């Protein structure tokens, strides 16, 4: 019987397939079903409608895609060295990767978020967190380069980060692991009650975006998973999902899943800000790196900071509350109005939605179910707005389209589910290939989402692309969400493992994208701003070469008098002042990467010659028809030789 039913269903679906082929107009989605390709086709030379900044996960970087085409434009190096761009290799950017643990050339990049003004995405900066050695980076979208990285002290597994408030007052970094604060040598089994979790509020200076830790809230020893800011009416609050309210330290997959409910921590940061501004909080010794790249000197500096202001929730009554939320919530997402806080309980069958208004009422009426380490716990029923009943398995993350709909990813059942805010009814579901993590609607973390597309970022790819051995590409999928039903448009590969993304209309960023750096504004201490400034200076065994590039020669291109054992710094200034004319430079045997120097920029690499001889260097970026001629020689003499230091370019020309 079962078999008969099965074959009947199969035959029916074949029939449906054929019918729809013959008569496409009769299909649900109309004539568009056959024209999916057209929807993602961006003709040669045309530009995409949206930018998407997709986290590079364990690559440590941030990738820049166009939507709807899914074309990759750039991989911005953030937390990992990038030999292509000399990031973390040249002398100028090495300080960017400095930490209290020394030079850390890699991290796990998770959650990008674009800066906002008045609750709307402004396209100035993208912030992204390094998970492993806790850091927050800022990428300047006028140059698409990482210009600032701040290390987060008292944090470990910087996961509930890096989300911005609606005027970019703060970018927030919450710890995943609780740890002893301050760190100390103690038995792991004494975790409970002794380990603490820090939630860090980093102020963002409005004009230049300079980051500074304003305060750290020292919370109970839970794991803090994700976070989102309040907006509109709830602006001034921040919401953090927690798991491991059990405070377990071993066999977490069992021990951290015991409680029926964990919490969403609601933090009134305006109240704490006021407390801190009036002298509240305790200055605590710390040690963390603050690395800033200066566009004028084209160089980064790293400063070790020695203290941080910490605040205990009990010092500021009425600032922190716990909202019970079923089963280890992952995503903690606030709708565009700021009223609804969605707790994506990843082990729960239902989606829990809290109401901001009900939360305020409960606080006012002091309807508490108890407290955790002095932090009031609000009654679950008193804060609950509604429940989306059994929408799928393993909800992870929700975004909003600004038209009253929410879109939630389900990891275990591998799908995106669309549901209605307020009525909590499921409207549509579409499968993901496979095991979707986060999703992104451009402007999703703001009052004004651009609800045309949703990008689903998948954890598993398997058979979706040509195989490339055991390791296959990571993958994203693009859905059209402009209609009642979602429509899968495109699969596209991504770098690393994409955890989250941020998107915005291209017009917000495109007009501000820099084309060159003005040579005149170059304040690099070793810049040679014209060929007249080129020189080679010896100071003991340190040699500084002030070199220039222009199509298609180096000046100087012949250098003599370098000795084995010297430390030779090539400071190379690109004299070009035209769009898209970088020059590269590489030296045989240099124990570092090439340089890739933008017009008007100066970069430096170190070469320590170990062998006598005449050694060539050349331009690595095809710059003109004479690129292959763009080369030079350095004569290296023995350490005790008397070869005169001299340099030249085209001495014998005409």
């Amino acid at each position, binding site marked *: 019987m079962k078999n008969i039913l099965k074959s009947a269903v199969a035959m029916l679906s074949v029939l449906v397939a054929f019918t729809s082929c013959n008569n496409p107009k009769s299909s649900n989605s109309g004539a568009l079903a056959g024209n999916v390709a057209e929807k993602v086709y961006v003709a040669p030379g045309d530009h995409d409608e949206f930018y998407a900044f997709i986290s590079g996960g364990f690559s440590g970087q941030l990738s820049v895609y166009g939507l709807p085409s899914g074309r990759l434009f750039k991989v911005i190096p953030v937390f990992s060295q990038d030999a292509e761009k000399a990031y973390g290799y040249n002398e100028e950017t090495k300080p960017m990767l400095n930490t209290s643990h020394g030079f850390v050339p890699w991290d796990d990049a998770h959650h990008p978020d674009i800066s906002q003004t008045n609750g709307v995405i402004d396209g100035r900066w993208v912030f992204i967190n390094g998970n492993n050695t806790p850091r927050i980076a800022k990428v300047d979208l006028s140059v698409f380069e990482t210009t600032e990285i701040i290390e987060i002290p008292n944090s470990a597994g910087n996961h509930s980060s890096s989300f911005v408030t609606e005027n970019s007052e703060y970018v927030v970094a919450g710890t995943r692991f609780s740890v002893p604060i301050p760190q100390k040598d103690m038995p792991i089994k004494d975790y409970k009650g002794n380990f603490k979790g820090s939630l860090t509020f980093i102020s963002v200076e409005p004009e230049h975006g300079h980051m500074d830790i304003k305060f750290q809230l020292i919370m109970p020893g839970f794991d803090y998973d994700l976070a989102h800011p309040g907006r509109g009416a709830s602006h001034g609050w921040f919401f953090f999902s927690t798991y491991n309210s059990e405070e377990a330290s071993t066999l977490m997959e069992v021990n951290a899943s015991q409680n029926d409910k964990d919490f969403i921590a609601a933090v009134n940061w305006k109240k704490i800000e006021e407390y801190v501004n009036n002298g509240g909080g305790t200055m605590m010794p710390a040690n963390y790196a603050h690395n800033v790249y200066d566009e004028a000197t084209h160089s980064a500096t790293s400063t070790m900071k020695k203290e941080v202001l910490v605040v205990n929730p009990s010092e500021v009554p009425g600032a922190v509350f716990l909202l019970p939320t079923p089963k280890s919530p992952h995503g903690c997402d606030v709708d565009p109005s700021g009223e609804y806080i969605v707790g994506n309980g990843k082990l729960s069958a239902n989606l829990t939605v809290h109401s901001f208004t009900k939360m305020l009422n409960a606080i006012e009426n002091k309807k508490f179910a108890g407290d955790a380490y002095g932090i009031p716990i609000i009654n679950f029923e008193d804060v609950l707005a509604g429940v989306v009943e059994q929408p799928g398995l393993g909800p992870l993350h929700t975004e909003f389209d600004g038209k009253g709909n929410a879109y939630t990813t389900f990891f275990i059942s591998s799908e995106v589910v669309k549901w209605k805010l307020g009525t909590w009814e499921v409207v549509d579901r579409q499968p993901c290939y496979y095991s979707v993590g986060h999703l992104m609607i451009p402007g999703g973390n703001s009052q004004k989402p651009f609800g045309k597309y949703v990008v689903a970022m998948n954890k598993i790819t398997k058979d979706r692309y040509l195989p490339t051995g055991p390791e296959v590409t990571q993958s994203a999928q693009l859905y059209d969400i402009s209609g009642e039903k979602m429509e899968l448009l495109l699969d596209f590969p991504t770098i690393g493992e994409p955890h989250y993304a941020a998107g915005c209309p291209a017009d917000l960023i495109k007009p501000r994208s820099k084309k060159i750096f003005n040579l005149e504004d170059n304040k690099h201490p070793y810049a040679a701003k*014209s060929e007249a400034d080129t020189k080679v200076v010896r100071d003991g065994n340190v040699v500084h070469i002030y070199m220039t590039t*222009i199509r298609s020669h180096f000046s100087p291109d012949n250098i003599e008098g370098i000795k084995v054992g010297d430390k030779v710094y090539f400071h190379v200034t690109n004299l070009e002042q035209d769009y898209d004319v970088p020059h590269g430079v590489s030296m045989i045997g240099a124990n570092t990467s090439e340089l890739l120097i933008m017009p008007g920029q100066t970069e430096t690499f170190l070469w320590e010659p170990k062998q006598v001889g005449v050694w060539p260097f050349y331009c690595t970026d095809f710059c*003109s*028809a*004479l690129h292959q001629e763009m080369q030079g020689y350095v004569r290296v003499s023995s350490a005790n030789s008397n070869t005169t230091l001299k340099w030249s370019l085209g001495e014998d*020309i005409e």
Partner: protein
Amino acid sequence: MKNTLNIFTTLCILLLISCGGKEEKKKDGFSYEKKAVTEQKSAPTEKVPASKKIDLSNKGVGPITSLTLPSEIDETMATHGAEVFKKMCTACHRPDKKFIGPSPKGVLERRSPEWVMNMILNPEEMVQKDPLAKALLIEFNGSPMANQSLSQEDARAVLEYFRTLK
């Protein structure tokens, strides 16, 4: 092993021969017969290179369509132009001799002021559309005139400086 030895010996001998040969010649590098001279002789009309060609009516392609130079040189402007030239142009141009690109000396005896300005301000389009600019690119081995993003004011000052180069 025997083979390796053989190869090694051969290589050594070759090395010796080549060294000896060089000493006898007492000459660096190498030379070969260039046929260019005879070819030039057989050419019926002598070709004038683009850098020597005179065309004062061609205004080039770009933002400058009309420019009349006053008879007197504006010294202040020329001094500023010399500074701009030194900063932005000397990587490829020397005032008095051919370098990567041609010398600007006496350029206004061969080119209209508009053409010179357009070559500074709009080189990419000039080498595509202007026949003289195209020919110059070929004459100078395909070495492109770089757009150094000068303002019109600075380009005009450079032009004034060129007038002083006699």
